[in-house]
């Protein structure tokens, strides 16, 4: 079936569906063809093109960790045509999958460093791949802080991860919401001020952040206040994608094609982009 045609997806089976929030679901999935599974590798930060046959393809990161290859995971926020069809998926359904594409979080830059993860909303999806990766190689890193925020307690995704990270001693876990509710006893506040309050030292530290553009914008300012240089900040960028492999011509920011040259960039790289289109 597959041959060497990059556009032909693998057929994958949905093994589990998790309703994360009102409009976000996580899917556990696996190769239908075991021999393809054995050949498959990816790195945290990479993405893939997922298809609902008859509806089309859309782009999502692989949100599980390459250190846990029993199955793969992706998480989807409902946003339009394909994402709505994905939300209809049930256990046992089949999807198309081609990838992995793009670059990945620079593990060699991160190794030996303290890490500060800052995620907002669905932005935790690519980060959790890396966080589990770090946990599974815990000795290679210094202190690890995770700060995750969402608009309200009901908007928190990956609660099972948050709980596990909070309980274990691998990670210093902080969760915050913009607005609490009656049952919420945790932190209330926007991510950037909470980050400043936690006040991680920039010394030997790399910050990895992912979330909605407005959150990223203010998080970058807070990180700068804390002494992080643009080289010490890693983030991912999102542009409209179709091919995922640098051909269809739509995901560029200046001469950089986010699908091939990204989606992971240091803030220093982003500052050198030849475009104001992001």
């Amino acid at each position: 079936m597959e041959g060497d045609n990059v556009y032909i997806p693998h057929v994958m089976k949905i093994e589990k569906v998790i309703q994360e929030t009102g409009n976000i679901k996580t899917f556990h999935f696996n190769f239908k063809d075991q021999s393809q599974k054995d050949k498959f590798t990816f790195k945290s930060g990479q993405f893939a093109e997922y298809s609902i046959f008859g509806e089309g393809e859309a782009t999502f990161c692989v949100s599980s960790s390459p250190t846990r290859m029993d199955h793969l995971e992706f998480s989807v926020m409902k946003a339009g045509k394909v994402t709505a069809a994905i939300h209809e998926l049930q256990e046992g359904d089949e999807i198309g999958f081609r990838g992995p594409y793009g670059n990945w979080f620079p593990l060699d830059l991160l190794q030996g460093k303290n890490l500060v993860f800052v995620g907002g909303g669905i932005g935790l999806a690519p980060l959790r791949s890396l966080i589990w990766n770090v946990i599974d190689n815990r000795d290679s890193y210094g202190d690890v802080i995770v700060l995750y925020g969402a608009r309200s307690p009901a908007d928190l995704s990956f609660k099972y991860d948050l709980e596990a990270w909070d309980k274990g001693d691998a990670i210093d876990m902080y969760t915050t919401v913009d607005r609490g509710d009656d049952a919420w006893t945790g932190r209330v506040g926007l991510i950037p001020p909470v980050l400043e309050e936690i006040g991680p030292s920039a010394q030997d530290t790399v910050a990895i952040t992912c979330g909605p553009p407005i959150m990223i914008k203010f998080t970058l300012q807070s990180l700068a206040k804390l002494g992080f240089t643009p080289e010490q900040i890693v983030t991912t960028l999102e542009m409209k994608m179709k091919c995922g492999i640098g051909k269809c011509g739509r995901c560029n920011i200046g001469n950089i094609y986010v699908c091939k040259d990204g989606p992971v960039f240091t803030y220093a790289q982003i500052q050198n982009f030849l475009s104001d289109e992001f």
Partner: protein
Amino acid sequence: MGNKKIKKDQLNTLFNELSKDCSVLVPTRSKGYIGFDLWDENNGDFIGWYKNTTIPLKANFFPKVEDMFRFNKGEGGYEIKEILPEEESQIIFGVRPCDARALKIIGTLFADTYKDPYFLKRRENAILIGLGCNEPCDTCFCASMGASPGESQDVDLLCTDMGDELLFETVSKKGEDLLSNMRGLSDSSDGDSSKAKELREAANNKIQRKIDTSNLKEKMRANFENREYWENVSMKCMSCGICTYVCPTCHCFDIHDENNKKDGLRVRNWDSCKFPLFTRMPMENPRHEKWRRVRQRYHHKFEYYDMNFGVIACTGCGRCIRECPVNVDVTQIITGIQSL
């Protein structure tokens, strides 16, 4: 091997012969425009009436719409059947030097890192017979784009129209092999070669339009944020996308599914950076405004492609100038940048 020539009234016999072993495509007028289509005896007289095809040669390698695979849901779940272009060699005759060059330029992208099997398969199976232009259009500016109307290194054989005869010159090994198998041709003389040379020089001198590409990247970079300039030059553009469809190097595409979930096709089709939907995302659109899309198109061709692949993605064929309903003119836009 020496060059050959053929009397024009013998071309039908030659194409008849060639058609026995493979398909032969020539410039053909159908549905109101000219493109490359299967030769038959009734349209063998194309030399003379066409200057260039309306639809560029790219369409024969990267069609407007093409099926990529079929999916089918049966008892055991989805089955996928790849749909690759037929393994059939093609001779394409009458290719203009600008289009041959364009094919090479986009070929670099389709072969880069992830191979695009649809384009590359067709390219592998095609032999290009070029036909130099003796009478370039007034919209041509190929001479500014590292090319010349009568010459090409990007074809397999190059023909020159010598009046009653066509001169065939060998450019590639593939072309040499083909030429040695073609019947009905006679050897050409040194006199023919020098006549062809004169015709080419004359054609080159007929090119009216010029653009200056020296330091163009730098100049464009310096004016990237010159919003006033881009708003001005894009004012009359209607975002119709015609310029991108007739462009021999525009290669942007969309991928979508047809039919239903049980049985359908994954299809790709030409798309255009001139359309606002091209980059629309759920939350935002980086090129929502027209001037940004116009800027993207010219920067992509004249700056980004050069940065990424070492060549400007424009061959000076002039189609966008000819076909634009509101006379947006790339040579004016580039000249305007150079004079900023």
